[in-house]
Protein backbone atom coordinates (compact mmCIF):
# COMPACT_ATOMS: atom_id res chain seq x y z
CA UNK A 1 0.00 0.00 0.00
CA UNK A 2 1.31 3.34 -0.94
CA UNK A 3 1.14 6.03 1.67
CA UNK A 4 0.21 9.43 0.47
CA UNK A 5 3.19 11.58 1.23
CA UNK A 6 2.58 15.12 2.31
CA UNK A 7 3.18 17.45 -0.59
CA UNK A 8 4.63 20.85 -0.09
CA UNK A 9 3.12 23.18 -2.66
CA UNK A 10 5.38 26.06 -3.50
CA UNK A 11 3.39 28.38 -5.69
CA UNK A 12 1.82 31.78 -5.32
CA UNK A 13 -1.90 32.30 -4.69
CA UNK A 14 -4.59 31.55 -5.81
CA UNK A 15 -4.43 28.04 -4.39
CA UNK A 16 -8.18 27.47 -4.12
CA UNK A 17 -9.91 27.16 -7.43
CA UNK A 18 -13.65 27.26 -7.79
CA UNK A 19 -13.70 25.81 -11.27
CA UNK A 20 -15.62 28.79 -12.60
CA UNK A 21 -14.07 29.72 -15.91
CA UNK A 22 -15.20 32.22 -18.50
CA UNK A 23 -16.59 29.56 -20.87
CA UNK A 24 -18.47 27.93 -17.96
CA UNK A 25 -20.05 31.25 -16.95
CA UNK A 26 -20.98 32.00 -20.55
CA UNK A 27 -22.37 28.48 -21.04
CA UNK A 28 -24.68 28.99 -18.07
CA UNK A 29 -26.23 32.05 -19.69
CA UNK A 30 -26.54 30.21 -23.00
CA UNK A 31 -28.46 27.41 -21.20
CA UNK A 32 -30.75 30.03 -19.65
CA UNK A 33 -31.41 31.40 -23.13
CA UNK A 34 -32.39 28.04 -24.62
CA UNK A 35 -36.07 28.21 -23.47
CA UNK A 36 -36.27 31.69 -25.00
CA UNK A 37 -34.87 30.48 -28.31
CA UNK A 38 -37.39 27.63 -28.35
CA UNK A 39 -40.18 30.03 -27.41
CA UNK A 40 -39.16 32.48 -30.12
CA UNK A 41 -39.15 29.77 -32.78
CA UNK A 42 -42.54 28.56 -31.54
CA UNK A 43 -44.08 31.99 -31.98
CA UNK A 44 -42.15 33.35 -34.96
CA UNK A 45 -41.14 30.19 -36.79
CA UNK A 46 -38.00 29.73 -38.84
CA UNK A 47 -37.52 33.50 -39.05
CA UNK A 48 -36.53 33.60 -35.39
CA UNK A 49 -33.82 31.00 -35.86
CA UNK A 50 -32.50 32.70 -38.99
CA UNK A 51 -32.25 36.13 -37.33
CA UNK A 52 -30.54 34.57 -34.29
CA UNK A 53 -28.10 32.70 -36.51
CA UNK A 54 -27.29 35.79 -38.56
CA UNK A 55 -26.63 37.93 -35.47
CA UNK A 56 -24.48 35.22 -33.87
CA UNK A 57 -22.58 34.67 -37.12
CA UNK A 58 -21.86 38.40 -37.35
CA UNK A 59 -20.50 38.44 -33.80
CA UNK A 60 -18.47 35.25 -34.08
CA UNK A 61 -16.94 36.06 -37.46
CA UNK A 62 -15.93 39.55 -36.30
CA UNK A 63 -14.34 38.11 -33.16
CA UNK A 64 -12.51 35.52 -35.24
CA UNK A 65 -11.17 38.04 -37.75
CA UNK A 66 -9.96 40.45 -35.07
CA UNK A 67 -8.24 37.81 -32.98
CA UNK A 68 -6.26 36.55 -35.99
CA UNK A 69 -3.53 39.09 -35.41
CA UNK A 70 -4.00 39.54 -31.68
CA UNK A 71 -1.13 38.79 -29.33
CA UNK A 72 -3.40 37.04 -26.84
CA UNK A 73 -4.44 34.55 -29.49
CA UNK A 74 -7.81 33.25 -30.55
CA UNK A 75 -10.56 34.28 -28.13
CA UNK A 76 -13.52 32.48 -29.71
CA UNK A 77 -13.47 29.51 -27.37
CA UNK A 78 -14.45 31.61 -24.35
CA UNK A 79 -17.95 31.67 -25.91
CA UNK A 80 -18.47 35.33 -25.12
CA UNK A 81 -18.92 36.28 -28.77
CA UNK A 82 -21.50 33.54 -29.23
CA UNK A 83 -23.38 34.75 -26.18
CA UNK A 84 -23.27 38.39 -27.31
CA UNK A 85 -24.60 37.38 -30.71
CA UNK A 86 -27.44 35.37 -29.16
CA UNK A 87 -28.37 38.17 -26.75
CA UNK A 88 -28.40 40.66 -29.61
CA UNK A 89 -30.46 38.32 -31.78
CA UNK A 90 -33.06 37.95 -29.06
CA UNK A 91 -33.53 41.74 -28.96
CA UNK A 92 -34.21 42.04 -32.70
CA UNK A 93 -37.61 42.07 -34.42
CA UNK A 94 -38.42 38.76 -36.17
CA UNK A 95 -38.81 40.34 -39.61
CA UNK A 96 -35.43 42.09 -39.64
CA UNK A 97 -33.48 41.49 -42.87
CA UNK A 98 -30.79 38.94 -42.10
CA UNK A 99 -27.97 41.12 -43.40
CA UNK A 100 -28.90 43.80 -40.86
CA UNK A 101 -28.79 41.23 -38.06
CA UNK A 102 -25.32 40.27 -39.30
CA UNK A 103 -24.21 43.92 -39.33
CA UNK A 104 -25.58 44.26 -35.81
CA UNK A 105 -23.58 41.28 -34.59
CA UNK A 106 -20.44 42.71 -36.16
CA UNK A 107 -21.12 46.13 -34.57
CA UNK A 108 -21.72 44.49 -31.17
CA UNK A 109 -18.35 42.80 -31.13
CA UNK A 110 -16.40 45.41 -33.09
CA UNK A 111 -17.72 48.66 -31.62
CA UNK A 112 -19.00 47.21 -28.36
CA UNK A 113 -16.13 45.01 -27.27
CA UNK A 114 -12.98 44.67 -29.35
CA UNK A 115 -12.03 48.30 -29.82
CA UNK A 116 -12.01 48.66 -26.04
CA UNK A 117 -9.54 45.82 -25.66
CA UNK A 118 -11.67 42.68 -25.68
CA UNK A 119 -13.58 40.79 -23.04
CA UNK A 120 -13.71 42.56 -19.69
CA UNK A 121 -12.55 45.95 -21.00
CA UNK A 122 -15.74 47.30 -22.52
CA UNK A 123 -17.69 50.00 -20.66
CA UNK A 124 -20.99 49.29 -22.43
CA UNK A 125 -22.96 46.08 -22.87
CA UNK A 126 -21.80 44.86 -26.31
CA UNK A 127 -25.14 43.36 -27.37
CA UNK A 128 -26.92 46.62 -26.58
CA UNK A 129 -24.28 48.66 -28.41
CA UNK A 130 -25.06 46.54 -31.47
CA UNK A 131 -28.77 47.05 -30.99
CA UNK A 132 -28.38 50.81 -30.50
CA UNK A 133 -26.29 50.93 -33.68
CA UNK A 134 -28.98 49.04 -35.60
CA UNK A 135 -31.75 51.25 -34.23
CA UNK A 136 -29.77 54.33 -35.27
CA UNK A 137 -28.87 52.96 -38.68
CA UNK A 138 -32.11 51.26 -39.73
CA UNK A 139 -34.91 52.85 -37.67
CA UNK A 140 -37.72 51.62 -39.92
CA UNK A 141 -36.67 47.98 -40.09
CA UNK A 142 -35.91 47.92 -36.38
CA UNK A 143 -39.41 49.08 -35.46
CA UNK A 144 -41.41 46.93 -37.88
CA UNK A 145 -43.02 44.17 -35.85
CA UNK A 146 -44.80 41.00 -36.85
CA UNK A 147 -47.66 39.35 -35.04
CA UNK A 148 -46.62 35.89 -33.81
CA UNK A 149 -47.69 33.25 -36.32
CA UNK A 150 -47.67 30.41 -33.81
CA UNK A 151 -46.84 26.81 -34.67
CA UNK A 152 -49.00 26.91 -37.80
CA UNK A 153 -46.49 29.14 -39.57
CA UNK A 154 -43.42 27.35 -38.30
CA UNK A 155 -41.88 26.71 -41.67
CA UNK A 156 -42.85 30.09 -43.05
CA UNK A 157 -40.21 32.76 -43.36
CA UNK A 158 -41.17 36.40 -43.05
CA UNK A 159 -40.35 37.77 -46.55
CA UNK A 160 -38.51 40.84 -45.26
CA UNK A 161 -35.91 38.52 -43.68
CA UNK A 162 -34.58 37.68 -47.09
CA UNK A 163 -33.78 41.19 -48.37
CA UNK A 164 -30.50 41.28 -50.30
CA UNK A 165 -27.51 42.80 -48.53
CA UNK A 166 -27.62 46.63 -48.46
CA UNK A 167 -31.10 46.56 -49.99
CA UNK A 168 -34.46 47.35 -48.47
CA UNK A 169 -37.04 44.62 -48.09
CA UNK A 170 -39.14 45.02 -51.24
CA UNK A 171 -42.20 43.14 -50.06
CA UNK A 172 -44.43 45.00 -47.66
CA UNK A 173 -44.80 42.75 -44.67
CA UNK A 174 -47.94 42.61 -42.62
CA UNK A 175 -46.87 44.54 -39.56
CA UNK A 176 -48.29 44.61 -36.09
CA UNK A 177 -47.75 46.72 -32.97
CA UNK A 178 -46.01 45.76 -29.75
CA UNK A 179 -47.88 45.94 -26.43
CA UNK A 180 -45.94 49.08 -25.52
CA UNK A 181 -46.62 50.65 -28.90
CA UNK A 182 -50.33 49.87 -28.55
CA UNK A 183 -50.30 51.45 -25.11
CA UNK A 184 -48.36 54.54 -26.09
CA UNK A 185 -49.93 55.37 -29.43
CA UNK A 186 -53.39 53.77 -29.30
CA UNK A 187 -54.00 53.63 -25.57
CA UNK A 188 -54.87 49.96 -25.73
CA UNK A 189 -53.84 47.36 -23.16
CA UNK A 190 -52.70 43.80 -23.86
CA UNK A 191 -54.11 41.12 -21.51
CA UNK A 192 -51.60 39.79 -19.00
CA UNK A 193 -51.78 36.08 -20.00
CA UNK A 194 -50.69 37.02 -23.51
CA UNK A 195 -47.73 38.94 -22.06
CA UNK A 196 -46.79 35.97 -19.90
CA UNK A 197 -46.90 33.38 -22.66
CA UNK A 198 -45.53 35.50 -25.43
CA UNK A 199 -48.60 35.84 -27.63
CA UNK A 200 -47.67 39.38 -28.65
CA UNK A 201 -45.60 41.15 -31.25
CA UNK A 202 -42.14 42.21 -30.16
CA UNK A 203 -38.46 41.37 -30.18
CA UNK A 204 -37.68 37.67 -30.42
CA UNK A 205 -36.75 37.09 -26.79
CA UNK A 206 -38.82 39.67 -24.98
CA UNK A 207 -42.39 38.47 -25.58
CA UNK A 208 -42.80 35.67 -23.06
CA UNK A 209 -42.45 36.78 -19.44
CA UNK A 210 -42.59 33.24 -18.05
CA UNK A 211 -39.71 31.91 -20.13
CA UNK A 212 -37.54 34.90 -19.23
CA UNK A 213 -38.27 34.38 -15.54
CA UNK A 214 -37.39 30.70 -15.92
CA UNK A 215 -33.98 31.61 -17.30
CA UNK A 216 -33.55 34.27 -14.63
CA UNK A 217 -34.29 31.87 -11.76
CA UNK A 218 -31.82 29.36 -13.19
CA UNK A 219 -29.10 32.00 -13.45
CA UNK A 220 -29.80 33.35 -9.96
CA UNK A 221 -29.64 29.84 -8.45
CA UNK A 222 -26.40 29.17 -10.31
CA UNK A 223 -25.17 32.54 -9.03
CA UNK A 224 -24.26 33.50 -12.56
CA UNK A 225 -25.97 36.85 -12.20
CA UNK A 226 -26.17 39.31 -9.35
CA UNK A 227 -29.81 38.99 -8.24
CA UNK A 228 -29.62 42.41 -6.58
CA UNK A 229 -29.45 44.17 -9.94
CA UNK A 230 -32.45 42.32 -11.35
CA UNK A 231 -34.51 42.81 -8.21
CA UNK A 232 -33.56 46.48 -8.03
CA UNK A 233 -34.55 47.11 -11.66
CA UNK A 234 -37.90 45.34 -11.32
CA UNK A 235 -38.64 46.88 -7.92
CA UNK A 236 -37.84 50.46 -8.88
CA UNK A 237 -39.64 50.11 -12.21
CA UNK A 238 -42.81 48.81 -10.52
CA UNK A 239 -42.72 51.47 -7.79
CA UNK A 240 -42.15 54.26 -10.29
CA UNK A 241 -44.76 53.03 -12.76
CA UNK A 242 -47.16 52.47 -9.82
CA UNK A 243 -46.73 56.10 -8.80
CA UNK A 244 -47.31 57.23 -12.39
CA UNK A 245 -50.39 54.99 -12.61
CA UNK A 246 -51.81 56.56 -9.44
CA UNK A 247 -51.11 59.99 -10.82
CA UNK A 248 -52.65 59.29 -14.22
CA UNK A 249 -54.64 56.11 -14.86
CA UNK A 250 -53.65 56.20 -18.54
CA UNK A 251 -50.24 54.88 -17.54
CA UNK A 252 -50.08 51.07 -17.35
CA UNK A 253 -50.36 49.19 -14.09
CA UNK A 254 -47.01 48.12 -12.63
CA UNK A 255 -47.54 44.42 -13.46
CA UNK A 256 -48.30 45.22 -17.10
CA UNK A 257 -45.36 47.61 -17.24
CA UNK A 258 -43.05 44.88 -15.95
CA UNK A 259 -44.12 42.21 -18.41
CA UNK A 260 -44.42 44.32 -21.56
CA UNK A 261 -41.48 45.31 -23.69
CA UNK A 262 -37.92 44.34 -22.97
CA UNK A 263 -37.82 45.38 -19.32
CA UNK A 264 -37.72 41.85 -17.92
CA UNK A 265 -35.28 40.60 -20.54
CA UNK A 266 -33.03 43.60 -19.98
CA UNK A 267 -33.18 43.30 -16.18
CA UNK A 268 -32.20 39.64 -16.22
CA UNK A 269 -29.86 39.22 -19.17
CA UNK A 270 -28.50 42.65 -20.05
CA UNK A 271 -28.18 44.70 -16.87
CA UNK A 272 -26.45 41.85 -15.05
CA UNK A 273 -23.54 41.60 -17.48
CA UNK A 274 -20.66 41.24 -14.99
CA UNK A 275 -18.32 43.37 -17.11
CA UNK A 276 -20.47 46.47 -17.26
CA UNK A 277 -22.25 46.44 -13.89
CA UNK A 278 -20.85 47.38 -10.46
CA UNK A 279 -19.32 44.59 -8.35
CA UNK A 280 -20.15 46.07 -4.94
CA UNK A 281 -23.54 45.00 -3.47
CA UNK A 282 -24.56 48.56 -2.65
CA UNK A 283 -23.45 49.61 -6.11
CA UNK A 284 -25.61 46.89 -7.64
CA UNK A 285 -28.67 48.31 -5.88
CA UNK A 286 -27.95 51.86 -7.05
CA UNK A 287 -27.26 50.64 -10.58
CA UNK A 288 -30.48 48.63 -10.75
CA UNK A 289 -32.66 51.38 -9.32
CA UNK A 290 -31.20 53.83 -11.83
CA UNK A 291 -32.05 51.50 -14.72
CA UNK A 292 -35.63 50.89 -13.56
CA UNK A 293 -36.38 54.58 -13.10
CA UNK A 294 -34.73 55.64 -16.36
CA UNK A 295 -36.52 52.93 -18.34
CA UNK A 296 -39.96 53.97 -17.09
CA UNK A 297 -39.04 57.65 -17.50
CA UNK A 298 -38.15 57.11 -21.18
CA UNK A 299 -41.27 54.97 -21.73
CA UNK A 300 -43.61 57.53 -20.24
CA UNK A 301 -42.12 60.85 -21.26
CA UNK A 302 -39.72 59.98 -24.12
CA UNK A 303 -40.33 59.56 -27.81
CA UNK A 304 -39.65 55.81 -27.86
CA UNK A 305 -42.21 53.30 -26.56
CA UNK A 306 -39.43 51.28 -24.85
CA UNK A 307 -36.50 52.71 -22.91
CA UNK A 308 -34.76 49.78 -21.27
CA UNK A 309 -31.90 49.71 -23.81
CA UNK A 310 -30.90 53.34 -23.34
CA UNK A 311 -31.49 53.05 -19.58
CA UNK A 312 -28.98 50.20 -19.33
CA UNK A 313 -26.46 51.89 -21.62
CA UNK A 314 -26.70 55.14 -19.61
CA UNK A 315 -26.22 53.34 -16.31
CA UNK A 316 -23.32 51.36 -17.82
CA UNK A 317 -21.59 54.70 -18.24
CA UNK A 318 -21.97 55.45 -14.53
CA UNK A 319 -20.64 52.06 -13.38
CA UNK A 320 -17.04 53.19 -12.67
CA UNK A 321 -18.35 56.13 -10.65
CA UNK A 322 -20.77 53.95 -8.67
CA UNK A 323 -17.99 51.49 -7.91
CA UNK A 324 -15.76 54.24 -6.65
CA UNK A 325 -18.42 55.69 -4.36
CA UNK A 326 -19.52 52.35 -2.91
CA UNK A 327 -16.08 50.90 -2.25
CA UNK A 328 -15.96 49.40 1.25
CA UNK A 329 -14.10 51.74 3.59
CA UNK A 330 -10.93 50.25 5.11
CA UNK A 331 -11.18 50.32 8.91
CA UNK A 332 -9.73 53.49 10.36
CA UNK A 333 -9.49 55.32 7.06
CA UNK A 334 -11.57 58.17 5.77
CA UNK A 335 -13.97 58.01 2.84
CA UNK A 336 -12.33 57.69 -0.54
CA UNK A 337 -12.36 60.99 -2.37
CA UNK A 338 -13.99 61.14 -5.75
Amino acid sequence: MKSKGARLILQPAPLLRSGLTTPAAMRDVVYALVPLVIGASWWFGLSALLVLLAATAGAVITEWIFSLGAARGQSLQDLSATLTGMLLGLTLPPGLPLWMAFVGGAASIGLGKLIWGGLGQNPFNPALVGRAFLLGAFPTAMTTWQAPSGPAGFLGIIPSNLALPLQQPTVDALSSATPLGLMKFQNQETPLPDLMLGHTAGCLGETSGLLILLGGVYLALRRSIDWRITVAVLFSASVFSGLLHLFDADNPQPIVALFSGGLLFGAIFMATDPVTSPVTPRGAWIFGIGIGVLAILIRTFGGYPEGIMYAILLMNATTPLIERVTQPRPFGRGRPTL
Partner: protein
Amino acid sequence: MSRDGQNRRAYQELVKGLWRENPVFVQVLGMCPMLAVSNSAINALTMGLATFTVLLSSSLMVSSLRNLIPRQVRISCYIIVIATFVTVIDFVLLALVPDVHKELGAFIPLIVANCMILGRQEAFAAKHPVGLAAADAAGMGGGFALALFGLGGFREVLGSGSLFGVSLFGAHFEPWVIMLLPPGGFISLGLLLLVLNWVRSRRTQRSEDLVTAQGNPSR
Protein backbone atom coordinates in the same frame (compact mmCIF):
# COMPACT_ATOMS: atom_id res chain seq x y z
CA MET B 1 21.92 76.23 -48.07
CA SER B 2 22.19 75.15 -51.67
CA ARG B 3 19.32 75.50 -54.08
CA ASP B 4 18.93 71.73 -54.14
CA GLY B 5 18.84 71.53 -50.35
CA GLN B 6 16.21 74.25 -50.24
CA ASN B 7 14.02 72.35 -52.64
CA ARG B 8 14.36 69.17 -50.66
CA ARG B 9 13.47 71.05 -47.47
CA ALA B 10 10.37 72.53 -49.09
CA TYR B 11 9.39 69.09 -50.35
CA GLN B 12 9.73 67.66 -46.86
CA GLU B 13 7.56 70.41 -45.40
CA LEU B 14 4.97 69.73 -48.07
CA VAL B 15 4.84 65.97 -47.54
CA LYS B 16 4.87 65.96 -43.74
CA GLY B 17 1.37 67.49 -43.59
CA LEU B 18 -0.03 64.82 -45.86
CA TRP B 19 0.98 61.84 -43.79
CA ARG B 20 3.57 62.01 -40.99
CA GLU B 21 2.08 65.07 -39.26
CA ASN B 22 -1.37 65.01 -40.81
CA PRO B 23 -3.41 67.66 -38.98
CA VAL B 24 -6.43 65.40 -38.60
CA PHE B 25 -5.04 61.93 -38.10
CA VAL B 26 -1.94 62.74 -36.09
CA GLN B 27 -2.52 66.11 -34.45
CA VAL B 28 -6.30 65.59 -34.20
CA LEU B 29 -6.94 69.26 -34.95
CA GLY B 30 -9.95 70.87 -36.64
CA MET B 31 -12.37 68.26 -35.33
CA CYS B 32 -15.35 70.64 -35.43
CA PRO B 33 -15.66 70.95 -39.24
CA MET B 34 -14.36 67.39 -39.55
CA LEU B 35 -17.39 65.98 -37.73
CA ALA B 36 -19.96 68.55 -38.73
CA VAL B 37 -19.69 68.87 -42.50
CA SER B 38 -18.45 65.40 -43.47
CA ASN B 39 -21.93 64.01 -44.12
CA SER B 40 -21.51 64.09 -47.89
CA ALA B 41 -18.57 64.03 -50.25
CA ILE B 42 -19.40 67.34 -51.95
CA ASN B 43 -19.78 69.20 -48.63
CA ALA B 44 -16.55 67.72 -47.34
CA LEU B 45 -14.65 68.53 -50.53
CA THR B 46 -15.90 72.14 -50.62
CA MET B 47 -15.03 72.63 -46.97
CA GLY B 48 -11.62 71.03 -47.48
CA LEU B 49 -10.80 73.26 -50.45
CA ALA B 50 -12.03 76.36 -48.63
CA THR B 51 -9.83 75.58 -45.63
CA PHE B 52 -6.90 74.79 -47.91
CA THR B 53 -7.23 78.14 -49.68
CA VAL B 54 -7.56 80.10 -46.45
CA LEU B 55 -4.58 78.34 -44.89
CA LEU B 56 -2.36 78.81 -47.94
CA SER B 57 -3.19 82.52 -48.39
CA SER B 58 -2.91 83.29 -44.68
CA SER B 59 0.43 81.51 -44.39
CA LEU B 60 1.79 83.43 -47.38
CA MET B 61 0.58 86.73 -45.91
CA VAL B 62 1.75 86.08 -42.36
CA SER B 63 5.09 84.77 -43.52
CA SER B 64 5.76 87.84 -45.66
CA LEU B 65 4.67 90.17 -42.84
CA ARG B 66 6.51 88.21 -40.14
CA ASN B 67 9.13 90.90 -39.51
CA LEU B 68 6.52 93.68 -39.31
CA ILE B 69 4.05 92.07 -36.88
CA PRO B 70 4.79 93.11 -33.27
CA ARG B 71 5.21 90.11 -30.99
CA GLN B 72 2.74 91.34 -28.38
CA VAL B 73 -0.25 91.50 -30.74
CA ARG B 74 0.69 88.72 -33.14
CA ILE B 75 -2.33 86.50 -32.45
CA SER B 76 -4.79 89.31 -33.21
CA CYS B 77 -2.87 90.09 -36.38
CA TYR B 78 -3.02 86.44 -37.51
CA ILE B 79 -6.75 86.35 -36.80
CA ILE B 80 -7.35 89.52 -38.84
CA VAL B 81 -5.40 88.05 -41.77
CA ILE B 82 -7.28 84.74 -41.53
CA ALA B 83 -10.66 86.43 -41.15
CA THR B 84 -10.00 88.50 -44.25
CA PHE B 85 -9.43 85.41 -46.38
CA VAL B 86 -12.37 83.60 -44.82
CA THR B 87 -14.63 86.49 -45.79
CA VAL B 88 -13.32 86.33 -49.35
CA ILE B 89 -13.90 82.55 -49.50
CA ASP B 90 -17.37 82.97 -47.99
CA PHE B 91 -18.41 85.31 -50.81
CA VAL B 92 -16.70 83.20 -53.48
CA LEU B 93 -18.61 80.08 -52.38
CA LEU B 94 -21.85 82.01 -52.17
CA ALA B 95 -21.37 83.12 -55.75
CA LEU B 96 -20.12 79.81 -57.18
CA VAL B 97 -21.98 77.06 -55.29
CA PRO B 98 -24.90 78.65 -53.43
CA ASP B 99 -26.49 75.27 -52.55
CA VAL B 100 -23.41 73.87 -50.88
CA HIS B 101 -22.82 77.25 -49.24
CA LYS B 102 -26.25 77.04 -47.70
CA GLU B 103 -25.62 73.53 -46.37
CA LEU B 104 -22.27 74.41 -44.88
CA GLY B 105 -23.92 77.34 -43.16
CA ALA B 106 -22.09 78.67 -40.12
CA PHE B 107 -19.12 76.38 -40.67
CA ILE B 108 -17.59 78.63 -43.34
CA PRO B 109 -17.27 81.69 -41.05
CA LEU B 110 -16.08 79.26 -38.38
CA ILE B 111 -12.97 78.48 -40.45
CA VAL B 112 -11.55 81.53 -38.64
CA ALA B 113 -11.67 79.56 -35.42
CA ASN B 114 -10.03 76.45 -36.92
CA CYS B 115 -7.14 75.84 -34.55
CA MET B 116 -5.13 74.15 -37.28
CA ILE B 117 -4.94 77.39 -39.29
CA LEU B 118 -3.96 79.58 -36.36
CA GLY B 119 -1.59 76.87 -35.20
CA ARG B 120 0.30 76.83 -38.51
CA GLN B 121 0.70 80.63 -38.44
CA GLU B 122 2.10 80.59 -34.91
CA ALA B 123 4.18 77.44 -35.24
CA PHE B 124 5.48 77.76 -38.76
CA ALA B 125 4.59 80.71 -40.99
CA ALA B 126 5.73 83.34 -38.49
CA LYS B 127 9.20 81.78 -38.26
CA HIS B 128 9.97 80.70 -41.81
CA PRO B 129 10.50 82.34 -45.22
CA VAL B 130 7.62 82.57 -47.66
CA GLY B 131 8.55 79.55 -49.79
CA LEU B 132 8.76 77.13 -46.88
CA ALA B 133 5.61 78.57 -45.30
CA ALA B 134 3.72 78.00 -48.55
CA ALA B 135 4.95 74.40 -48.75
CA ASP B 136 3.95 73.77 -45.15
CA ALA B 137 0.53 75.35 -45.62
CA ALA B 138 -0.12 73.41 -48.82
CA GLY B 139 0.85 70.16 -47.12
CA MET B 140 -1.23 70.76 -44.01
CA GLY B 141 -4.21 72.13 -45.95
CA GLY B 142 -3.97 69.25 -48.40
CA GLY B 143 -3.78 66.71 -45.59
CA PHE B 144 -6.83 68.26 -43.97
CA ALA B 145 -8.80 68.35 -47.22
CA LEU B 146 -7.92 64.74 -48.02
CA ALA B 147 -8.94 63.52 -44.58
CA LEU B 148 -12.20 65.47 -44.71
CA PHE B 149 -12.95 64.18 -48.18
CA GLY B 150 -12.20 60.60 -47.18
CA LEU B 151 -14.52 60.80 -44.20
CA GLY B 152 -17.23 62.57 -46.21
CA GLY B 153 -17.04 59.96 -48.97
CA PHE B 154 -17.24 57.08 -46.50
CA ARG B 155 -20.25 58.57 -44.71
CA GLU B 156 -22.05 59.38 -47.95
CA VAL B 157 -21.53 55.89 -49.38
CA LEU B 158 -23.00 54.19 -46.31
CA GLY B 159 -25.45 56.91 -45.30
CA SER B 160 -27.01 57.67 -48.68
CA GLY B 161 -25.69 54.91 -50.92
CA SER B 162 -24.20 57.43 -53.29
CA LEU B 163 -21.01 59.36 -54.02
CA PHE B 164 -21.29 62.99 -55.17
CA GLY B 165 -25.01 62.30 -55.46
CA VAL B 166 -24.52 59.40 -57.91
CA SER B 167 -26.39 56.36 -56.67
CA LEU B 168 -24.15 53.31 -56.19
CA PHE B 169 -26.39 50.50 -55.00
CA GLY B 170 -29.63 50.88 -56.93
CA ALA B 171 -32.98 52.32 -55.99
CA HIS B 172 -33.69 49.93 -53.13
CA PHE B 173 -30.63 50.80 -51.11
CA GLU B 174 -31.36 50.86 -47.39
CA PRO B 175 -29.60 53.99 -46.05
CA TRP B 176 -27.62 53.66 -42.83
CA VAL B 177 -29.28 56.68 -41.26
CA ILE B 178 -26.85 56.74 -38.34
CA MET B 179 -23.97 57.55 -40.71
CA LEU B 180 -25.50 60.92 -41.61
CA LEU B 181 -26.18 61.76 -37.95
CA PRO B 182 -23.56 63.03 -35.49
CA PRO B 183 -22.93 59.55 -33.97
CA GLY B 184 -21.99 58.32 -37.44
CA GLY B 185 -19.42 61.11 -37.67
CA PHE B 186 -17.81 60.07 -34.41
CA ILE B 187 -17.91 56.37 -35.28
CA SER B 188 -16.44 56.84 -38.78
CA LEU B 189 -13.73 59.22 -37.58
CA GLY B 190 -12.83 56.80 -34.80
CA LEU B 191 -12.66 53.87 -37.21
CA LEU B 192 -10.54 55.88 -39.65
CA LEU B 193 -8.11 56.87 -36.87
CA LEU B 194 -8.02 53.23 -35.75
CA VAL B 195 -7.08 51.95 -39.20
CA LEU B 196 -4.46 54.64 -39.81
CA ASN B 197 -2.87 54.17 -36.38
CA TRP B 198 -2.74 50.45 -37.01
CA VAL B 199 -0.99 50.98 -40.35
CA ARG B 200 1.40 53.44 -38.71
CA SER B 201 2.27 51.15 -35.82
CA ARG B 202 2.87 48.24 -38.19
CA ARG B 203 5.24 50.39 -40.20
CA THR B 204 7.13 51.47 -37.10
CA GLN B 205 7.28 47.88 -35.91
CA ARG B 206 8.62 46.73 -39.23
CA SER B 207 11.34 49.36 -39.37
CA GLU B 208 12.32 48.55 -35.77
CA ASP B 209 12.53 44.88 -36.64
CA LEU B 210 14.72 45.80 -39.58
CA VAL B 211 17.08 47.82 -37.36
CA THR B 212 17.30 44.96 -34.85
CA ALA B 213 17.95 42.46 -37.58
CA GLN B 214 20.72 44.60 -39.05
CA GLY B 215 22.21 45.20 -35.61
CA ASN B 216 22.47 41.49 -34.85
CA PRO B 217 23.64 39.72 -37.98
CA SER B 218 24.00 36.53 -35.98
CA ARG B 219 20.23 36.25 -35.54
